[in-house]
């Protein structure tokens, strides 16, 4: 019904920007609103951990070891008697930090490279296409593990790389290919459109055309791409930390799963369950919002099926 109401709004000709329209579409679906709330809660928990308000004393034992989940112990306790609930909350900080910074790095590489390749064409384009084809031809997990292996313990501009910084750096450096390819394809279509011609005729510099005209017109692709990519970043952090190439000394969800591996044979399933639940819930919400964003921001998909 809401769909019909929206279309009639458009038919009446009430002007609304793409973004405002997309936002309205998102809020018109209950499941999407619920997912947005879930994501907001996770972000708030992460900020709370940063501010020292939540789970500050996660490393303190709260009771005997291996306690089952109960009213007293929340999600139970781990092999050192620490609260699984606090560790789970703390993990939100690691996961979201990794996903956010990795996205930032990846956008900083993929967006300009894609835009330059698409706009200039010629040998620059061929070079960039060669670069991403090459990176893309190394299976992702192998590439990410090899990068993590090599960068571990190195210094970058005098800043030592260990723990979480390796994780987001590695994920960011290896995952820009998809975005780069997408942006390149889109910019190739845009570069001969009338508005770009007009800007060119008006005497705009090339950097101004790319930054001020073309990129704003493809920016929604970045958002769509990354709302869905976030999930794979969170999963990658889990695997890296689990394999001991990532976060150490802090309870990330991957570290929790690693701890849980030994506990499982004592019948202690709750730490694994807590980490799985946290990852599953956050990724589910991100997946739903990502899909909804794609539907809302990509007018081509709007016609619906039948």
């Amino acid at each position, binding site marked *: 019904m809401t769909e019909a109401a929206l279309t009639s709004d458009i038919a009446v000709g009430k002007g609304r920007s793409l973004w405002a329209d997309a936002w309205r579409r998102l809020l018109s679906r209950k499941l999407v609103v619920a997912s947005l709330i879930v994501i907001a809660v996770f972000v708030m928990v992460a900020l709370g951990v940063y501010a020292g308000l939540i789970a500050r004393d996660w490393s303190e034992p709260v009771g005997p070891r291996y306690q089952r989940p109960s009213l007293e112990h929340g999600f139970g306790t781990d092999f050192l008697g620490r609260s699984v609930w606090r560790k789970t909350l703390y993990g939100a900080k690691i996961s979201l930090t990794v996903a956010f910074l990795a996205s930032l790095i990846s956008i900083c590489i993929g967006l300009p490279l894609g835009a330059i390749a698409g706009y200039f064409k010629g040998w620059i384009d061929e070079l960039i296409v*060669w*670069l991403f*084809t*090459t*990176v893309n*031809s*190394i*299976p*992702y*997990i*192998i*590439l990410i*593990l*090899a*990068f993590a*292996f*090599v*960068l571990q313990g*190195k210094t970058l501009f005098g800043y030592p790389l260990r723990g979480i910084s390796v994780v987001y750096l590695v994920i960011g450096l290896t995952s820009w290919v998809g975005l780069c390819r997408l942006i390149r394809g889109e910019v190739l279509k845009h570069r001969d459109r009338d508005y770009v011609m007009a800007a060119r005729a008006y005497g705009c510099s090339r950097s101004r055309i790319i930054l001020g005209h073309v990129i704003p017109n493809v920016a929604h692709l970045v958002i769509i791409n990354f709302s869905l990519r976030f*999930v794979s970043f969170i*999963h990658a952090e*889990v*695997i890296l930390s*689990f*394999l*001991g*190439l990532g976060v150490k000394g802090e309870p990330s969800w*991957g570290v929790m*799963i690693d701890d*849980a*591996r030994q506990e*499982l*044979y004592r019948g202690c*399933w709750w730490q*694994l369950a807590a*980490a*799985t639940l946290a*990852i*599953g*819930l*956050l*990724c*589910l919400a*991100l*997946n*739903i919002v990502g*899909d909804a964003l794609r539907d809302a921001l990509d007018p081509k998909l709007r016609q619906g*099926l*039948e």
Partner: protein
Amino acid sequence: MVSYIIRRLLYAIPTILGVLLITFILFNLIPGDPSYDIAGKSASAETIAEIRRELGFDKPRFLDTEALSQGRIAAAFDSQFFNHFRNTLTLNFPRSLTSHEPIWDEIKSRAPASLTLAAPMFIGLIATSIAIALVVAFARGSWVDTILVFICVVGMSIPMLSYILFGQHYLAYELGWFPILGYESGMQAFKYIALPCLLGIASGLGSYVRFYRTVMLDEMRSDYVRTAFAKGLSSPRVLFKHVLKNAMIPIITTLVLSIPFLFLGSLLLERFFSIPGMGSYFLDAFNSRDFPVINAMVFTTSLLYVLGQLVTDICYALVDPRISLR
């Protein structure tokens, strides 16, 4: 057709050289000389010199300018850079730092176990997800569709490690339906790979079904489907006879695009179920900082992936006569 294949082969060359460049940067330029790491803190100068010579780190990095100025062209190219390219391209990898066995022999002896796990998992995954996707496409728009898609999204949100840990613990350890871990070659292998296969399929199903559903629904929008319905064909007939056939091209693409996923799945599954395949070799190399092995694995897997893409493109050209290179 032959000229297409040749041209497509030529396109693969820069990519493979690019992979070699990346591995050179990763394993020679960034880490520098690993001899001290390998030899340990209290090693004598002779031991370090020995390791340096064995790994070729005593050679100049790019070009032996001294030899070049003396006019010895062949000697000038005896550098880390060119040796890396030459040795890797000819699959003439150095020996492993831990087992001291030739790496290529090790890879060859481990490939069958990896394949025994990956092939049934892959075929099972593709077949199951196409079947479910057909059901979903058949029931499009109904509550069955909505619920199945939701289950898929839940399934792809849960990390693979959780599937493996829960599955191994409850299905193998508690219920005893499967062996907990281990491997034997020959027919006995099926007993051991059954659970890893099932877990691999379960964890991949969500994203595959969703992808194939999109592919099939895209096809359902096209004109020929409308025509088929208009002339009165039944829904199953349209689905099987027309849609599935036309969806084959995107399906072939996923076959190759999912090779990286297979590596991930195999890596973790081999690790957890102690299957002596390439994945566990790769992960063991990480723990012992055995960088020649990692280098060899990166190159070999990339080579396989590039070859996979090549085969796909050739399959495309066979399936669809409209496809050709510029």
